[in-house]
């Protein structure tokens, strides 16, 4: 695992060669610290962010809107120079797993997992059951006991797991995981440790970024 490298280049052309190997680059407005520069591929950790800074970073990456004076480079592209269609295409290559799994409370695990697929790739829905079962088994879970559960009946780990399988189905090039091990006991932490290998096996060359809050927060 590597930590965010704040020492890389900072040219402003949206397709500058210097950006080609950048998975996530974020420069806050002048005078503020918290520059993040993550190369493509591998496992990275962004640690020690306050809740406010974490929210700003995630807001910028997920909404593809950098604040005034801030700069965002995502998967080799300077976001500010992109049009709406390019932004939408870029956003489709990025996935985010919130600390609580990001599930909808009125849908069971199966419905939650295939929800984005139903919108973005409805033709893949026919083969989704086998794919989801395979992924869950690979991650050490029993699909029969998990898939029918509503989020209120799931443990913190099961929620993260369902949210993670949902992400994997979309084969993203960049995965942002918030507080991966937060709220998990030792056994569940061992299970969550399998998230990265599962992603790397499915999306070779993809970038896995863990975003952790500050210990004091």
């Amino acid at each position: 695992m590597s930590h965010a490298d704040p020492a890389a280049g900072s040219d402003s052309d949206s397709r500058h060669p210097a950006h080609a190997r950048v998975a996530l680059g974020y420069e806050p407005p002048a005078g503020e610290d918290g520059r993040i520069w993550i190369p493509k591929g591998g496992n990275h950790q962004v640690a020690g962010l306050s809740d406010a800074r974490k929210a700003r970073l995630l807001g910028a990456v997920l909404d593809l809107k950098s604040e005034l004076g801030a700069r965002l480079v995502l998967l080799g592209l300077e976001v500010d120079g992109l049009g709406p269609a390019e932004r939408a295409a870029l956003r489709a290559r990025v996935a985010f797993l919130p600390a609580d799994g990001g599930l909808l409370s009125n849908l069971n695990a199966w419905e939650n997992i295939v929800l984005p697929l139903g919108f973005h790739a409805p033709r893949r829905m026919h083969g989704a059951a086998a794919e989801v079962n395979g992924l869950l088994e690979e991650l050490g879970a029993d699909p029969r006991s998990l898939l029918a559960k509503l989020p209120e009946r799931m443990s913190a780990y099961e929620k993260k797991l369902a949210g993670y399988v949902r992400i994997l189905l979309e084969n993203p090039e960049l995965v942002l995981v918030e507080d991966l091990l937060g709220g998990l006991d030792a056994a569940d932490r061992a299970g969550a440790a399998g998230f990265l290998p599962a992603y790397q096996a499915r999306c070779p060359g993809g970038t896995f970024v863990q975003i952790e809050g500050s210990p004091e927060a």
Partner: protein
Amino acid sequence: MIGVYREFEGCTRLMGHVLRRLRVLALPPVAESLIRQIYFTGASATAGMVLRGAFLGTLIIAYVIDVLDANSALAVKILIWVVLREIGPLIAAVLVIQRSGTAIATELALMQISGEVANLRRMRIDPRDYLVVPRVVGVALSTAALTFYVQVIAVGGGMLLSALTIDASLGQLANDFFLLASPVDFAYSMIKSLLFGVAIAVICCYHGLHPPGVSINAVPKAAINAVTQSTLLVMLLNVIFAYLVFGQAFFGLVTAKL
């Protein structure tokens, strides 16, 4: 006043979005949501309507014949005017507001406050596509279906119970009904109830997605706003329909023929 304008504009935009994005109903998750909405609003609400509808029809016929000392033809005519054209759509709309309107506003407000609407955006799903479109279509279709139930039960049940309680035979009442009722009455009430359903769902979805705060207290406030405003709009639409259809009678230029 600015708030009222903002809400009106928001509801209009939401309605425009629904009309533009009807094609999302073909997507599996949205189609599933539509079926759930129709089941909840249109199917599971029918049980309580049978007795209410039948009693309503009986009351109208009994009052007209006994209190106004009228004949069965006039009683049936009034039944058609009141139940088919006015009370049927209104009762269905009130029932939909009570059951589904409050549920929609509360559910969406909770989803907004708990961050589930934001989670949808993070999945690149427009919350209006997934949460609003199936609810608006489902509630509109269900309101029309409930109106039809009320009409059938109130007219049929009313005639059946009236034959037992007043001095008029069922055959006579039924004969008068089929002579006097026209398909226009049904078409008018169906169009009206579809519009009622759309108005109720759009207002309830709007208030659910825009709760007046981020604390749990905002949820009942959103539900109250949704119920009061959708009731008001249903009444307003009813008046507009009545004006368009019976406008001349309102101004005394034409008197209704009894």
